[in-house]
């Protein structure tokens, strides 16, 4: 019943189970056809809801709006109210004098920021690291989730799942210490090399491979944690679809390609969009700890920049300016990512 209902909607590949998984975010969206109903729920609605007047829509969506009130209030109080703090970016902010009485300098902080080679160095590092992580890290949890999903024995599956979760709960200090003990200059690997008269390679202090090192640490620590969301999405795929496809003669790989991946698509896209918006957060503490190992030229990212050259030197306004720069870029990125998702016919953050 479910299959039939959706496949009637999916014009491009009729008969395929591809678009058929219910309960999957993103699926009902209809690629590239803005005017057409977005999904089954609309198809049962009175036509052209956009033209309904506000009053009627308000009456209809009253409960929905009411439901959002608690969160909206919390955000207004604890997130929006404190936004007055951002004015420090336009001040020569002296904490002792306070936000209100500090000297107003307009865009001076931004002017200085944009002319600061250290700032641009950190922007560049941030972007480079973000790109590396996007390519190397992002697919790992998805692949892991698929791998785990294919394991038949529930006991092995839950065991591996629980184990991969563990490193997420290690602090960065500990993760880096562990890496150091394994591949550091005096670690297991290099002592082995030395004892066998081979040239040791101190990976931890080599700026040229630093970004790969940092990414591998992220993978080790958080890939296992990252799979949880995908596992939830996998659990939401209707088992009957697999059975039906198998009956139709689709093999293991075809089933993964045509049922599993489409089933995950909505979540993957959502994660990707959020990831892009978060591109400028590439691990403050992790880089802070390793900053002196490879030097600030290689390790400084936007967050560590505003920490060291803003807060760390009492130049709060400067740090706040760097923060605003980051916020604006992030918002632009998530907006762009969302647009991009829409142009591929995906929902992204919200349905087009």
């Amino acid at each position, binding site marked *: 019943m479910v299959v039939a209902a959706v496949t009637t909607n999916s014009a491009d590949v009729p008969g395929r189970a591809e678009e058929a998984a219910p309960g999957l975010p993103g699926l009902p969206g209809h690629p590239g056809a803005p005017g057409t109903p977005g999904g089954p729920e609309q198809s049962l609605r009175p036509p052209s809801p956009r033209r309904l007047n506000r009053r009627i829509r308000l009456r209809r969506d009253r409960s929905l709006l*009411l439901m959002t009130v608690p969160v909206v209030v919390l*955000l207004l*109080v604890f997130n929006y109210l404190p936004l007055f703090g951002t004015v420090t970016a336009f001040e020569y902010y002296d904490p002792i004098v306070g936000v209100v009485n500090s000297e107003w300098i307009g865009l001076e902080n931004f002017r200085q920021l944009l002319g600061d080679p250290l700032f641009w160095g950190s922007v560049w590092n941030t972007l480079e690291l973000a790109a590396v992580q996007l390519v190397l890290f992002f697919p790992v949890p998805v692949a892991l989730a698929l791998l785990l999903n294919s394991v038949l024995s529930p006991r092995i599956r839950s065991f591996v799942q629980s184990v991969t979760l563990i490193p997420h709960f290690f602090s960065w200090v500990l993760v880096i*210490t562990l890496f150091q003990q394994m591949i550091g200059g005096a670690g297991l690997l290099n002592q082995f090399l030395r004892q066998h008269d081979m040239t040791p390679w101190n990976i931890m202090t080599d700026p040229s491979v630093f970004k790969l090192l940092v990414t591998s640490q992220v993978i080790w620590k958080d890939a296992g944690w990252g799979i949880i969301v995908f596992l939830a999405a996998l659990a939401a795929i209707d088992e009957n679809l697999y059975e039906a496809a198998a009956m139709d003669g689709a093999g293991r790989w075809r089933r993964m390609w045509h049922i599993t991946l489409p089933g995950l698509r909505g979540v993957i896209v*959502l994660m990707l969009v959020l990831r892009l918006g978060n591109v400028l957060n590439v691990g403050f503490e992790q880089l802070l700890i390793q900053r002196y190992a490879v030097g600030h030229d290689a390790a400084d990212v936007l967050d560590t920049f505003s920490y060291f050259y803003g807060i760390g030197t009492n130049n709060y306004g400067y740090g706040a300016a760097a923060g605003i720069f980051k916020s604006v870029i992030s918002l632009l990125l*998530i907006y762009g990512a969302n647009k991009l998702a829409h142009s591929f016919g995906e929902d992204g953050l919200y349905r087009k």
Partner: protein
Amino acid sequence: MSDVTLKARRPSARPVWEEEPTAVGQGVKGVTLAGILVLVLGPLWCVVITSFSTQGSINRAGGLVIVPHGLTLNAYRTMLGDGPVTRALFVSLGVTVAGTVFSMVVSVLCAYGLSRSRSLGHRFLLMLLVVTMFVSGGLIPSYLVVTGLGGFDQYWALILPSAVSVFNILVLRSFYGSTAAELIDAARMDGAGDWRILWSVVLPTSRAVTAVITLFYAVGYWNSFFNVMLYMPTSSQKWPLQYVLYQYVNLGTNMPGQVNSGFGNAANATAPLSLQMAVVVLTLVPVVIAFPFVQKHFAKGVLTGAVKG
């Protein structure tokens, strides 16, 4: 034949329609899984063994212990032997339970409230939410707001300011947006209101994601101590477990700007590594206990059953 008995014993093992696994496939899978296990369990071994090691054993290793030379329960005795830990454990449990319930209620409501793609103002509200992920006024103003509302030394200051995770709401919403859309529509046709639909249609059909988000919130509350540090720095009676344990973890970590004062060993004493690692182990315990409950909801076919039912 054997297949049938197997299936009877473990209902979620290979279904009848699925083909026999190939030897190569199984081999590759096995090696990969074994590799992953080694990569995680190896370091975990170091951590656990170090937590049980004597100071002599640790000093001989010059860091984390790989091969144990002397084992002791001292680290755990030091931490768990005192009264404060027991009280802190209850504080932690209280904050975690209350916080998670509160967060889940507001998040689920909000996520469902925003899940209807044509509802009034949902796009504006979404923007309102998303912006807070990237824009922040900073610590000072947040601190001033919370203390201005009388949050100093209050338990609610540990919950309310961080009760909403927009990320979690977005994930929930993305699942609700289409989960059992059929059933929702059917229910609406039957004249059910949104509250009723949420309660008796959406929630029962999205147990996996509910479990996951509950886990996210609970872990967040359990591990958080930043707010404690800000809002109840000297009321040691009220501290939750993580903050009490935190004293051991970063003991001796030099803060930027802290000069070596030479007034004795107090400030530069390094916490025994065994204590630090015992804290890590203790942090893992509740997760290891709680995770199977979450995992239960990932079992294949959970949703199918519900939808069909």
